[in-house]
């Protein structure tokens, strides 16, 4: 317990040159789905600064174990067993505790359990592909899964997505809401992926590549990868403008 009020400062502006632009023609679907007019900016109000909170009561015991959470009793998903873990922090380096992290991915052969995915690689009857967890007080999270396979997609004639896991993170304010993708160290498909390359800055791409983490690998059981996620930082509230008497 502590007696600090919740932080309510406005968020640092997003860096538009660090995030992908809306119009990235190498990723064909973006062409008709990219707004053409400039966004209108304003300093965040309470509706952007506040955000939903999710309690630990939301979670089932296997929600962060994709090896087991869709498997029949006594069975488990096929593929390379891995642990993915890391810290959700803000741009000031402070851990973001108590926040919901959701993740989804294809199976070991690159097939998604989704009615729209018609790739000929088979479904794994013991793998669903979704999971979620809530960060601890210091901002750490972890889950167990199998390493997803690469898969082809109809963009260029012969485009393949690198192995990746999708992440959805809430933070504490709705303006921190972020969806991104984690890639795996050493994957040669990363450099030639049109979706990765919607990001122009190589250092920004590097921030989405998780290194293999031998120290957290469980011997004779599961490899580990570490993936830290950074959300927007927020101003302190010492000198926010207020009307008299407010």
């Amino acid at each position: 317990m502590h007696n600090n009020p919740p932080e309510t400062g406005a968020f640092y502006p997003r860096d538009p040159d660090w995030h992908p632009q809306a119009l990235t023609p190498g990723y064909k679907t973006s062409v008709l789905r990219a707004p053409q007019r400039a966004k209108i900016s304003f300093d965040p109000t309470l509706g952007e600064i506040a955000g939903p909170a999710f309690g630990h009561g939301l979670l089932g015991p296997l929600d962060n174990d994709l090896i087991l959470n869709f498997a029949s009793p006594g069975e488990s998903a096929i593929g390379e067993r891995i642990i993915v873990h890391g810290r959700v922090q803000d741009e000031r380096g402070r851990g973001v505790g108590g926040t919901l992290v959701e993740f989804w991915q294809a199976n070991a052969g690159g097939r998604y359990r989704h009615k729209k995915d018609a790739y000929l690689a088979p479904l794994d009857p013991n793998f669903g592909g979704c999971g979620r967890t809530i960060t601890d007080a210091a901002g750490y999270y972890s889950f167990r899964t199998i390493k997803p396979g690469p898969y082809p997609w109809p963009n260029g004639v012969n485009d393949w997505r690198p192995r990746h896991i999708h992440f959805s993170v809430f933070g504490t304010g709705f303006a921190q809401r972020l969806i991104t993708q984690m890639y795996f160290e050493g994957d040669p498909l990363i450099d030639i992926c049109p979706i990765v390359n919607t990001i122009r800055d190589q250092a920004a791409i590097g921030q989405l590549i998780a290194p293999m983490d031998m120290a957290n690998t469980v011997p004779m059981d599961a490899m580990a990868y570490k993936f830290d996620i950074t959300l927007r930082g927020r101003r302190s509230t010492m000198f926010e403008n207020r009307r008299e008497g407010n």
Partner: protein
Amino acid sequence: MMQRLDRLKESPSQTAGPYVHIGCVPSFAGIEGVYPEDLGRAMITGDAKGERITLTGRVFDGTGTPLRDAMIEIWQADAAGLFNSPAETRGSADPAFAGWGRQPTDGETGIYAFETVKPGRVPFPDGRLQAPHITMWIVARGINLGLSTRVYFEDEAEANAADPILSRIEHKARVPTLMARRAGSVHTFDIHLQGENETIFFDV
């Protein structure tokens, strides 16, 4: 030498992709049994105060084709203008109202729908009251960074005229793109990602 700021960089965004439902709306993907129900499906969790409304519409691309693989989240105050969030310091929000909801656009029609309550007014940082509005966040295949917009209500003309955000929009002809059209308790809000009637998106 000066001290260093040592600020970290935000993790860059990537598209949610066509299979966002697997992680966020599993029943839409055909995945049952991992979670009891899709998160954010029900915003009203009890005897919520205020006027019940349906917020519905579609998301159109630059050719006028509806997106059938988008996911929309909304975040709003309760009927009294309070947010159900730890960052709400002005009082306690209605416990029967979550304030946050999440829906896919339909795989055939592209229609989304939220059952919610009409939000109360929330002050701007300088103390002026904003008009009732709902914050909306849109992700989909082909959208590299989630798009933020606001839903206002056309039957709140007086409040809209005084709204600090609406009144700073230079191109008044674009303001109607932020207005939901009302028919009874149904408020229709279509989003145009690109083109002549392009919806206003915000950088907040």
